[in-house]
Protein backbone atom coordinates (compact mmCIF):
# COMPACT_ATOMS: atom_id res chain seq x y z
CA UNK A 1 0.00 0.00 0.00
CA UNK A 2 1.34 3.43 -0.93
CA UNK A 3 2.33 5.68 1.95
CA UNK A 4 1.68 9.26 2.89
CA UNK A 5 4.87 10.52 4.55
CA UNK A 6 4.59 13.82 6.38
CA UNK A 7 7.29 16.10 7.76
CA UNK A 8 6.94 19.15 9.97
CA UNK A 9 6.85 20.46 13.52
CA UNK A 10 4.33 20.14 16.37
CA UNK A 11 1.52 21.33 14.10
CA UNK A 12 2.04 18.26 11.91
CA UNK A 13 2.67 16.01 14.91
CA UNK A 14 -0.61 17.06 16.52
CA UNK A 15 0.92 18.08 19.81
CA UNK A 16 -1.54 18.67 22.67
CA UNK A 17 -4.45 17.00 20.88
CA UNK A 18 -6.57 14.96 23.33
CA UNK A 19 -5.25 11.50 22.34
CA UNK A 20 -1.57 12.30 23.04
CA UNK A 21 -1.66 15.48 25.16
CA UNK A 22 2.00 16.34 25.83
CA UNK A 23 3.37 12.91 24.91
CA UNK A 24 6.17 13.42 22.36
CA UNK A 25 6.68 9.78 21.46
CA UNK A 26 3.70 9.10 19.16
CA UNK A 27 2.06 11.45 16.68
CA UNK A 28 -1.65 12.12 17.18
CA UNK A 29 -4.27 10.17 15.26
CA UNK A 30 -6.37 13.32 15.36
CA UNK A 31 -3.74 15.39 13.57
CA UNK A 32 -4.21 16.41 9.94
CA UNK A 33 -1.73 13.84 8.49
CA UNK A 34 -3.72 10.96 9.97
CA UNK A 35 -7.06 12.39 8.82
CA UNK A 36 -5.70 13.08 5.35
CA UNK A 37 -4.17 9.60 5.00
CA UNK A 38 -7.59 8.11 5.78
CA UNK A 39 -9.23 10.25 3.13
CA UNK A 40 -6.56 9.41 0.56
CA UNK A 41 -6.66 5.73 1.57
CA UNK A 42 -2.92 5.68 2.18
CA UNK A 43 -0.83 4.28 4.99
CA UNK A 44 0.72 7.00 7.07
CA UNK A 45 4.23 7.61 8.32
CA UNK A 46 4.18 10.89 10.23
CA UNK A 47 7.81 11.99 10.67
CA UNK A 48 6.99 15.33 12.31
CA UNK A 49 8.94 16.33 15.40
CA UNK A 50 7.71 18.98 17.86
CA UNK A 51 10.02 21.99 18.13
CA UNK A 52 12.01 21.14 15.04
CA UNK A 53 13.57 23.81 12.80
CA UNK A 54 13.51 23.92 9.02
CA UNK A 55 17.04 22.56 8.77
CA UNK A 56 15.92 19.77 11.11
CA UNK A 57 12.98 19.02 8.83
CA UNK A 58 15.38 18.94 5.89
CA UNK A 59 17.54 16.44 7.76
CA UNK A 60 14.53 14.17 8.37
CA UNK A 61 13.72 14.32 4.66
CA UNK A 62 17.30 13.56 3.59
CA UNK A 63 17.56 10.60 5.96
CA UNK A 64 14.19 9.09 5.06
CA UNK A 65 14.15 5.88 3.03
CA UNK A 66 11.53 6.71 0.38
CA UNK A 67 10.02 4.41 -2.17
CA UNK A 68 8.98 5.85 -5.52
CA UNK A 69 5.24 5.44 -4.74
CA UNK A 70 5.38 7.49 -1.52
CA UNK A 71 3.52 10.76 -1.38
CA UNK A 72 5.46 13.26 0.75
CA UNK A 73 3.96 16.36 2.33
CA UNK A 74 6.11 18.86 4.18
CA UNK A 75 4.73 21.65 6.30
CA UNK A 76 7.73 23.94 6.86
CA UNK A 77 7.89 25.59 10.25
CA UNK A 78 8.63 29.06 11.65
CA UNK A 79 11.75 30.79 10.35
CA UNK A 80 13.01 31.91 13.74
CA UNK A 81 14.09 28.40 14.58
CA UNK A 82 17.51 26.99 14.01
CA UNK A 83 19.55 23.92 14.72
CA UNK A 84 23.00 24.16 16.24
CA UNK A 85 25.29 21.15 16.47
CA UNK A 86 27.28 21.10 19.69
CA UNK A 87 30.99 20.22 19.75
CA UNK A 88 30.11 16.52 20.09
CA UNK A 89 28.00 16.67 16.96
CA UNK A 90 24.67 16.47 18.77
CA UNK A 91 21.98 18.66 17.18
CA UNK A 92 19.85 21.03 19.27
CA UNK A 93 16.81 22.84 17.91
CA UNK A 94 16.06 26.34 19.15
CA UNK A 95 13.21 28.74 18.68
CA UNK A 96 15.10 31.93 19.28
CA UNK A 97 12.10 34.17 19.79
CA UNK A 98 11.21 32.03 22.81
CA UNK A 99 14.63 31.76 24.41
CA UNK A 100 14.39 33.14 27.89
CA UNK A 101 18.11 33.77 28.33
CA UNK A 102 18.46 37.31 27.03
CA UNK A 103 22.18 37.13 26.22
CA UNK A 104 21.84 34.08 23.95
CA UNK A 105 18.80 35.52 22.23
CA UNK A 106 20.44 38.87 21.57
CA UNK A 107 23.60 37.20 20.26
CA UNK A 108 21.58 35.07 17.89
CA UNK A 109 19.75 38.16 16.68
CA UNK A 110 23.10 39.97 16.18
CA UNK A 111 24.03 37.31 13.64
CA UNK A 112 20.81 36.03 12.14
CA UNK A 113 18.30 38.77 11.40
CA UNK A 114 14.78 37.84 10.21
CA UNK A 115 15.82 38.23 6.56
CA UNK A 116 18.77 35.87 6.98
CA UNK A 117 16.59 33.20 8.57
CA UNK A 118 14.00 33.44 5.82
CA UNK A 119 16.56 33.21 3.01
CA UNK A 120 18.24 30.24 4.71
CA UNK A 121 14.84 28.56 4.81
CA UNK A 122 14.57 29.05 1.04
CA UNK A 123 17.83 27.13 0.69
CA UNK A 124 16.47 24.25 2.80
CA UNK A 125 13.25 24.21 0.79
CA UNK A 126 15.16 24.19 -2.50
CA UNK A 127 17.37 21.38 -1.22
CA UNK A 128 14.32 19.29 -0.25
CA UNK A 129 12.64 19.99 -3.58
CA UNK A 130 15.58 18.68 -5.62
CA UNK A 131 15.72 15.61 -3.41
CA UNK A 132 11.99 14.92 -3.80
CA UNK A 133 12.20 15.38 -7.56
CA UNK A 134 14.97 12.79 -7.72
CA UNK A 135 13.10 10.23 -5.59
CA UNK A 136 9.34 10.70 -5.83
CA UNK A 137 6.57 11.23 -8.34
CA UNK A 138 4.43 13.20 -5.93
CA UNK A 139 5.18 15.64 -3.16
CA UNK A 140 3.64 18.76 -1.73
CA UNK A 141 5.24 21.55 0.28
CA UNK A 142 3.28 23.89 2.53
CA UNK A 143 4.12 26.93 4.59
CA UNK A 144 2.79 27.15 8.09
CA UNK A 145 1.64 30.74 7.82
CA UNK A 146 1.24 33.49 5.28
CA UNK A 147 4.31 35.71 5.45
CA UNK A 148 4.58 38.33 2.66
CA UNK A 149 8.21 39.00 3.67
CA UNK A 150 9.07 35.40 2.85
CA UNK A 151 8.17 35.83 -0.82
CA UNK A 152 9.83 39.23 -1.03
CA UNK A 153 13.13 37.60 -0.11
CA UNK A 154 12.78 34.66 -2.46
CA UNK A 155 16.23 34.11 -4.06
CA UNK A 156 16.62 34.23 -7.84
CA UNK A 157 17.29 30.52 -8.10
CA UNK A 158 13.79 29.72 -6.85
CA UNK A 159 11.84 29.80 -10.07
CA UNK A 160 9.36 27.00 -9.77
CA UNK A 161 8.25 26.68 -6.17
CA UNK A 162 4.75 27.93 -5.51
CA UNK A 163 3.15 27.07 -2.23
CA UNK A 164 -0.60 26.42 -2.05
CA UNK A 165 -2.42 29.23 -0.29
CA UNK A 166 -3.50 27.09 2.61
CA UNK A 167 -1.93 27.97 5.95
CA UNK A 168 -2.37 25.98 9.13
CA UNK A 169 -1.98 29.09 11.30
CA UNK A 170 -5.10 30.61 9.70
CA UNK A 171 -7.11 27.69 11.11
CA UNK A 172 -5.52 28.07 14.56
CA UNK A 173 -6.61 31.71 14.64
CA UNK A 174 -10.30 31.04 14.09
CA UNK A 175 -10.95 27.61 15.63
CA UNK A 176 -10.74 26.34 19.23
CA UNK A 177 -7.21 25.57 20.36
CA UNK A 178 -5.68 22.34 21.69
CA UNK A 179 -5.16 21.55 25.38
CA UNK A 180 -2.22 23.96 25.72
CA UNK A 181 -4.29 26.85 24.29
CA UNK A 182 -1.55 27.43 21.75
CA UNK A 183 -1.59 24.66 19.14
CA UNK A 184 -4.43 23.80 16.78
CA UNK A 185 -7.38 21.93 18.27
CA UNK A 186 -9.32 18.95 16.94
CA UNK A 187 -11.48 20.95 14.56
CA UNK A 188 -8.54 22.94 13.33
CA UNK A 189 -6.86 19.70 12.17
CA UNK A 190 -10.14 18.34 10.84
CA UNK A 191 -10.89 21.34 8.61
CA UNK A 192 -7.29 21.71 7.54
CA UNK A 193 -7.22 18.03 6.46
CA UNK A 194 -10.50 18.48 4.63
CA UNK A 195 -9.31 21.55 2.72
CA UNK A 196 -5.98 19.92 1.97
CA UNK A 197 -7.79 16.86 0.62
CA UNK A 198 -9.88 19.09 -1.65
CA UNK A 199 -6.75 20.86 -2.82
CA UNK A 200 -4.97 17.58 -3.60
CA UNK A 201 -8.01 16.16 -5.38
CA UNK A 202 -8.22 19.28 -7.55
CA UNK A 203 -4.50 19.13 -8.27
CA UNK A 204 -4.92 15.63 -9.64
Amino acid at each position, binding site marked *: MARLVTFGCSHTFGQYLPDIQDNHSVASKLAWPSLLANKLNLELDNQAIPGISN*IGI*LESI*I*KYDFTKEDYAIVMWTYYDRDR*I*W*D*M*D*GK*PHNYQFAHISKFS*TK*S*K*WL*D*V*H*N*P*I*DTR*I*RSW*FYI*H*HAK*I*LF*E*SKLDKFLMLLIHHDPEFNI*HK*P*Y*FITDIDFPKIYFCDYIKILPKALDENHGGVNCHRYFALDLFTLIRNMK
Partner: protein
Amino acid sequence: MTRLVTFGCSHTYGHGLPDCIIDKTLPGLYPSKLAWPSLLATKLNYDLYNGAMPGMSNFAILDIIINFKLEPDDLVIVLWSYFERDMIFQKNGRRHHFRVGKSNTLFFKKVIDSWLDIHNETDIRMRSWYYMHHAHLYLKSAVKKYYFLHVNNETPFWDLQPNFGKEINFLPVYFGELLEKYPRAGDGKHGGVECHIEFANHLFEEITKPKMV
Protein backbone atom coordinates in the same frame (compact mmCIF):
# COMPACT_ATOMS: atom_id res chain seq x y z
CA MET B 1 32.85 23.75 -27.29
CA THR B 2 32.50 22.10 -23.89
CA ARG B 3 32.88 24.46 -20.97
CA LEU B 4 34.75 23.97 -17.72
CA VAL B 5 32.95 25.82 -14.93
CA THR B 6 34.77 26.17 -11.63
CA PHE B 7 33.60 27.40 -8.24
CA GLY B 8 35.55 28.06 -5.09
CA CYS B 9 37.47 30.64 -3.07
CA SER B 10 40.74 32.50 -3.62
CA HIS B 11 42.59 29.25 -4.35
CA THR B 12 40.39 28.76 -7.40
CA TYR B 13 40.40 32.45 -8.30
CA GLY B 14 44.19 32.57 -8.29
CA HIS B 15 44.54 35.34 -5.72
CA GLY B 16 48.16 36.45 -5.43
CA LEU B 17 49.37 35.09 -8.77
CA PRO B 18 51.39 37.58 -10.89
CA ASP B 19 48.37 38.59 -13.02
CA CYS B 20 45.98 38.67 -10.04
CA ILE B 21 47.37 40.90 -7.34
CA ILE B 22 46.93 44.55 -6.42
CA ASP B 23 49.14 46.40 -3.93
CA LYS B 24 50.89 43.14 -2.98
CA THR B 25 47.88 41.91 -1.00
CA LEU B 26 44.53 42.32 -2.75
CA PRO B 27 43.21 40.02 -5.48
CA GLY B 28 43.04 41.25 -9.04
CA LEU B 29 39.76 42.28 -10.64
CA TYR B 30 39.48 39.09 -12.68
CA PRO B 31 40.43 35.46 -12.03
CA SER B 32 44.00 34.62 -12.88
CA LYS B 33 44.94 33.02 -16.18
CA LEU B 34 47.72 31.27 -14.27
CA ALA B 35 45.32 29.63 -11.81
CA TRP B 36 44.52 25.92 -12.01
CA PRO B 37 41.08 26.37 -13.69
CA SER B 38 42.63 28.17 -16.63
CA LEU B 39 45.50 25.66 -16.91
CA LEU B 40 43.12 22.72 -16.72
CA ALA B 41 40.75 24.19 -19.32
CA THR B 42 43.70 24.57 -21.71
CA LYS B 43 44.77 20.95 -21.13
CA LEU B 44 41.23 19.74 -21.74
CA ASN B 45 40.75 22.10 -24.68
CA TYR B 46 37.58 23.47 -23.05
CA ASP B 47 36.22 26.98 -22.68
CA LEU B 48 36.38 28.26 -19.13
CA TYR B 49 34.09 30.12 -16.78
CA ASN B 50 35.80 30.61 -13.44
CA GLY B 51 33.04 31.44 -10.93
CA ALA B 52 35.35 31.55 -7.92
CA MET B 53 35.47 34.54 -5.57
CA PRO B 54 38.11 35.28 -2.94
CA GLY B 55 36.97 34.95 0.67
CA MET B 56 33.98 32.73 -0.05
CA SER B 57 32.53 30.38 2.54
CA ASN B 58 31.04 27.03 1.61
CA PHE B 59 27.55 28.51 2.00
CA ALA B 60 28.50 31.29 -0.42
CA ILE B 61 29.93 28.79 -2.91
CA LEU B 62 26.64 26.87 -2.83
CA ASP B 63 24.80 30.17 -3.34
CA ILE B 64 26.90 30.97 -6.42
CA ILE B 65 26.46 27.46 -7.86
CA ILE B 66 22.68 27.39 -7.64
CA ASN B 67 22.37 30.92 -9.01
CA PHE B 68 24.57 30.12 -12.01
CA LYS B 69 23.05 29.16 -15.34
CA LEU B 70 24.65 25.85 -16.19
CA GLU B 71 24.48 23.98 -19.50
CA PRO B 72 24.02 20.18 -19.48
CA ASP B 73 27.40 19.66 -21.18
CA ASP B 74 29.35 21.75 -18.68
CA LEU B 75 32.07 20.06 -16.67
CA VAL B 76 31.83 21.51 -13.17
CA ILE B 77 34.59 21.45 -10.57
CA VAL B 78 34.07 22.80 -7.06
CA LEU B 79 36.99 23.37 -4.72
CA TRP B 80 35.21 23.83 -1.39
CA SER B 81 36.69 26.33 1.00
CA TYR B 82 37.75 26.45 4.65
CA PHE B 83 35.07 25.67 7.22
CA GLU B 84 35.65 28.66 9.50
CA ARG B 85 33.85 30.95 7.07
CA ASP B 86 30.20 31.85 6.87
CA MET B 87 27.82 34.10 5.01
CA ILE B 88 24.84 35.95 6.44
CA PHE B 89 22.16 37.88 4.65
CA GLN B 90 21.87 41.41 5.99
CA LYS B 91 18.54 43.12 6.58
CA ASN B 92 18.68 44.67 3.10
CA GLY B 93 19.22 41.17 1.64
CA ARG B 94 22.87 41.82 0.78
CA ARG B 95 25.34 39.08 1.51
CA HIS B 96 28.05 39.52 4.09
CA HIS B 97 30.98 37.12 3.91
CA PHE B 98 33.27 36.66 6.86
CA ARG B 99 35.97 34.52 8.30
CA VAL B 100 35.45 33.78 11.96
CA GLY B 101 37.89 35.76 14.05
CA LYS B 102 38.58 38.33 11.36
CA SER B 103 36.66 41.55 10.88
CA ASN B 104 37.49 44.95 9.51
CA THR B 105 34.62 46.90 11.06
CA LEU B 106 33.28 47.27 14.58
CA PHE B 107 29.77 46.26 13.49
CA PHE B 108 30.95 42.99 12.01
CA LYS B 109 33.25 42.38 14.96
CA LYS B 110 30.07 42.27 17.07
CA VAL B 111 28.47 39.88 14.56
CA ILE B 112 31.49 37.60 14.59
CA ASP B 113 31.81 37.66 18.38
CA SER B 114 28.15 36.69 18.68
CA TRP B 115 28.60 34.07 15.94
CA LEU B 116 31.32 32.43 18.04
CA ASP B 117 29.00 32.28 21.05
CA ILE B 118 26.25 30.55 19.08
CA HIS B 119 28.05 28.39 16.54
CA ASN B 120 31.17 26.26 16.87
CA GLU B 121 33.61 24.28 14.70
CA THR B 122 31.47 21.16 14.64
CA ASP B 123 28.34 23.11 13.74
CA ILE B 124 29.96 24.86 10.80
CA ARG B 125 31.43 21.58 9.50
CA MET B 126 28.03 19.87 9.72
CA ARG B 127 26.47 22.77 7.84
CA SER B 128 29.13 22.35 5.16
CA TRP B 129 27.98 18.75 4.69
CA TYR B 130 24.47 20.08 3.98
CA TYR B 131 25.77 22.70 1.53
CA MET B 132 27.78 20.05 -0.31
CA HIS B 133 24.87 17.62 -0.41
CA HIS B 134 22.63 20.40 -1.76
CA ALA B 135 25.17 21.22 -4.48
CA HIS B 136 25.65 17.51 -5.22
CA LEU B 137 21.90 16.97 -5.82
CA TYR B 138 21.63 20.17 -7.84
CA LEU B 139 24.60 19.39 -10.08
CA LYS B 140 23.46 15.81 -10.52
CA SER B 141 20.25 17.14 -12.02
CA ALA B 142 21.90 19.94 -14.03
CA VAL B 143 25.08 18.58 -15.64
CA LYS B 144 26.58 15.30 -16.81
CA LYS B 145 29.89 15.57 -14.94
CA TYR B 146 31.00 17.33 -11.82
CA TYR B 147 33.77 16.88 -9.29
CA PHE B 148 34.18 18.04 -5.71
CA LEU B 149 37.47 18.82 -4.01
CA HIS B 150 38.59 19.96 -0.59
CA VAL B 151 41.36 22.41 0.19
CA ASN B 152 42.62 20.13 2.98
CA ASN B 153 42.17 16.48 3.88
CA GLU B 154 40.80 17.30 7.29
CA THR B 155 40.09 14.50 9.80
CA PRO B 156 37.44 16.33 11.93
CA PHE B 157 35.37 16.89 8.78
CA TRP B 158 35.45 13.22 7.76
CA ASP B 159 34.70 12.14 11.33
CA LEU B 160 31.42 14.04 11.11
CA GLN B 161 30.39 12.59 7.76
CA PRO B 162 26.66 11.83 7.91
CA ASN B 163 25.25 8.90 5.95
CA PHE B 164 23.99 11.21 3.24
CA GLY B 165 27.55 12.51 2.85
CA LYS B 166 28.59 9.07 1.59
CA GLU B 167 26.66 9.74 -1.63
CA ILE B 168 29.15 12.49 -2.48
CA ASN B 169 32.44 11.70 -4.19
CA PHE B 170 35.49 13.86 -3.60
CA LEU B 171 38.63 13.64 -5.71
CA PRO B 172 41.67 12.78 -3.55
CA VAL B 173 43.62 15.89 -4.61
CA TYR B 174 44.24 18.59 -2.01
CA PHE B 175 45.33 22.10 -2.87
CA GLY B 176 46.48 22.67 0.73
CA GLU B 177 49.16 19.96 0.47
CA LEU B 178 50.71 21.65 -2.58
CA LEU B 179 50.56 25.03 -0.84
CA GLU B 180 53.13 23.75 1.62
CA LYS B 181 55.32 22.22 -1.09
CA TYR B 182 55.94 25.20 -3.38
CA PRO B 183 56.84 28.89 -3.02
CA ARG B 184 53.86 31.08 -2.23
CA ALA B 185 52.25 33.67 -4.49
CA GLY B 186 53.09 37.39 -4.36
CA ASP B 187 50.97 37.99 -1.25
CA GLY B 188 52.92 35.37 0.69
CA LYS B 189 49.77 33.44 1.57
CA HIS B 190 48.21 31.84 -1.48
CA GLY B 191 49.51 29.18 -3.84
CA GLY B 192 52.20 30.26 -6.29
CA VAL B 193 52.54 29.52 -9.99
CA GLU B 194 54.08 26.04 -9.53
CA CYS B 195 51.45 25.06 -7.01
CA HIS B 196 48.69 25.80 -9.53
CA ILE B 197 50.54 24.00 -12.33
CA GLU B 198 50.94 20.81 -10.28
CA PHE B 199 47.36 20.97 -9.01
CA ALA B 200 46.05 21.32 -12.58
CA ASN B 201 48.24 18.34 -13.64
CA HIS B 202 46.91 16.16 -10.78
CA LEU B 203 43.36 17.11 -11.62
CA PHE B 204 43.85 16.40 -15.30
CA GLU B 205 45.17 12.92 -14.44
CA GLU B 206 42.26 12.23 -12.09
CA ILE B 207 39.62 13.42 -14.54
CA THR B 208 40.98 11.70 -17.63
CA LYS B 209 42.18 8.42 -16.16
CA PRO B 210 40.21 5.40 -17.37
CA LYS B 211 37.56 4.28 -14.91
CA MET B 212 37.53 0.75 -13.48
CA VAL B 213 34.51 -1.18 -14.67
